[in-house]
């Protein structure tokens, strides 16, 4: 059993919502050390700890960093060398979960926590399979927040680039690096030029199609590795769609839709194929592909795309005397089901711009299992 350590001086006070439902637990506020938090986490009370860390926002959230620095190594070594490897993974996984919890609210802290854990790995000795999985999960998380070029350096996404450098140093053959580099190019494509426009003077990105010439070769390079190929084809297909090259888009997207290894990729490829057909005026094909996407994953983007087609189809059917009159009812049912099922599931389209973040659920689940925190 891990010995309880006193709360490190200056460490933040965390409000732990224990395993009870959040609303009922609000009154149960505890003060906790990192050791306690890790023990909760190891025992499977993962959500409670993560909620507690999320609740820390608004306080001095950068206190999270010394929180890790001061206590973690002692906790890792507490049960002896035989357990140290697993415990290191558990600490690193816990750090990732903490960072993920702050994704939308305290990104600077999240980023610092990931960087701390990455450095911990690099100092820990030779690379391990556990570190490999961890580092891909960290990449997925960092890709969730691409940032434009800084005024000081002119460089976009320095954190992702730094992490890719670390991955390359530790795992030189990792194929995901080339895909991530292509994604950075893609980011530059979409955000290369913009100007202020629109309501409220808000910035709306006006995409620079000329930069596509640099993205497609990068995606092709990534696609040379079999592990990357379907995702690279998906991204290439979407790019072709946005550039108005429908037939090229269909070729890539059809290839990306094959296979059952990643339902989110299949869903997106089917959705994009529907968009291509819709733009080309092939309404029946569009309807069929939107329906396929919805059958793959009943998420809202496919439900709405199919619903719009059904709205138009009903008008055509009724006008032709084929009075079924229930297409709009079906659209309502689809949307209702998608909205009801949305809790706890992200529409893949919403994460499409965030690269490997779509792989986060699988990667973090794998890490939890490896660390014995499931």
């Amino acid at each position, binding site marked *: 059993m891990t010995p309880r350590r006193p709360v490190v001086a200056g460490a933040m006070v965390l409000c732990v919502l224990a395993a009870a439902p959040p609303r009922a637990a609000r009154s149960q506020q505890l003060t906790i050390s990192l050791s306690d938090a890790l023990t909760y986490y190891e025992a499977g009370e993962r959500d409670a700890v993560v909620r507690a860390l999320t609740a820390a926002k608004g306080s001095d959230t950068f206190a999270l960093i010394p929180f890790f620095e001061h206590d973690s190594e002692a906790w890792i070594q507490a049960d002896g060398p035989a357990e140290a490897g697993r415990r290191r993974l558990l600490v690193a996984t816990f750090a990732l979960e903490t960072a993920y919890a702050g994704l939308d609210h305290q990104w600077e802290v999240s980023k610092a926590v990931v960087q701390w854990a990455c450095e911990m790995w690099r100092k820990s000795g030779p690379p391990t399979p556990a570190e490999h999985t961890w580092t891909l999960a960290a990449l997925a998380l960092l890709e969730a927040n691409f*940032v434009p070029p800084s005024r000081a350096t002119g460089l976009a996404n320095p954190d992702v680039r730094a992490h890719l450098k670390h991955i390359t140093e530790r795992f030189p053959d990792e194929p995901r690096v080339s895909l991530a580099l292509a994604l950075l190019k893609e980011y530059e494509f979409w955000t290369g030029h913009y100007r202020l426009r*629109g309501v409220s003077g*808000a910035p709306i990105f006006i995409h620079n199609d000329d930069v596509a010439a640099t993205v497609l070769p990068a995606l092709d390079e990534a696609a040379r590795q079999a592990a990357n190929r379907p995702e690279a084809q998906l991204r290439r297909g979407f790019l072709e769609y946005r550039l108005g090259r429908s037939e090229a888009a269909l070729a890539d997207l059809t290839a990306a839709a094959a296979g059952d290894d990643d339902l989110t990729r299949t869903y997106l490829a089917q959705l994009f194929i529907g968009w291509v057909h819709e733009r080309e005026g092939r309404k029946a094909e569009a309807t069929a592909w939107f329906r396929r996407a919805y059958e793959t994953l009943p998420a*809202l983007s496919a439900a*709405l795309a199919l*619903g719009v087609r059904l709205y138009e189809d009903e008008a055509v059917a009724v006008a032709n005397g084929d009075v079924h*009159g229930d297409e709009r009812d079906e659209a309502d049912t689809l949307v209702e089901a998608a909205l009801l099922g949305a809790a706890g599931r992200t529409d893949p389209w919403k994460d499409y711009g965030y690269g490997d973040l779509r792989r986060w659920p699988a990667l973090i689940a794998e890490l939890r299992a490896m660390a014995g925190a499931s």
Partner: protein
Amino acid sequence: MTRAARQDGGGVMTRAARQGGGVMTRDDRHRDGRAFPQPRRPGGRLAGVAALVATACIVVAARQATPPQDPQRTFRAVGALVTVDVSVRDGNRLVRGLTPGDFHVEDNGVAQTVEMLDVESLPIDLTLIVDTSGSLITMVDEVRQYVAEAASVLRADDRVRLITFSGEVRDVFGLQPATAPLPVEVIVADGATAIYDAVIAGLMRTRRADRRQVLVVFTDGIETNSAMDADALEAVAKRSDSVLHVLLVKDVMTSRLEMPNYYQDTRRYWLSRAVPDPLAFGRAAAATGGWMQEVAVRPDLPKALRLTLEDFRTSYVLRYRPVGVAQEGWHRIDVAVTGGHTVRARSGYFWGALNPKR
């Protein structure tokens, strides 16, 4: 006065019309996606005289006694019945007490005989579609208050639903009596903004034919990551039975001074399906007979919300069975009223959208 000048195309008035030009072309109306909820009466004295002359020249089709009301069976389009919500204003004042004979309705240019439904007998389903994206993060408490206030102006037999949207669309609570306690505390703000998705979902979710359906969207209008686009929004709006109003709040939090860490601590969405079209919301609202109103400052929002609901509550509901027109395609609706008042109504309908089931 042109036919287009008699009707403002569902809440859209051009600058020329607002400034007294009195003449608005169909093209003007489609280019300008904005509506003005408190429009000045179009035209000055000359235009007013012209309006009176024009109205006097209108030959109103045979008046028809209103049949017994049976909202369950007769409200929305049944067979080839077309139902139109019509708002009539004299400047800022809602014009009440009109009869069917005061209206002149044309379907694809052919005058129609209309009847008027008793709006008092028709309960309202209000769908609030509220922007809870990160750019509104400083307004959460106000938004909760507005939602509660909106429900408070409804009647006991009315119902209210809340859909919120940031990057994701959430059906916070389904239709429930307006008098029920509303769980507004669940409203939180973060993330991107999928306005097209949310409004289309809201339009598709308003299906009861025996109740008047109105959607009020509250947003800063900064679209980022919808899967749908402006064309889809307009396609659904044109086929919807509901009236869509959009309240566009302009002074939302976009200031680094107000939230110094917001930009560095919040995820940005950078990849969209298409370049957003800010005017699409106005066009979609206009297609349904609603408006898009720009609310300059936050304190004006509750008033705008009240006026929007009051306008809908007191709108006339006209109905007619189209005669003398082709039974296919898009049908343009033009509505004029005695007295030259400002009229707002849906811009038309698809023949095939007249679902016999409704």
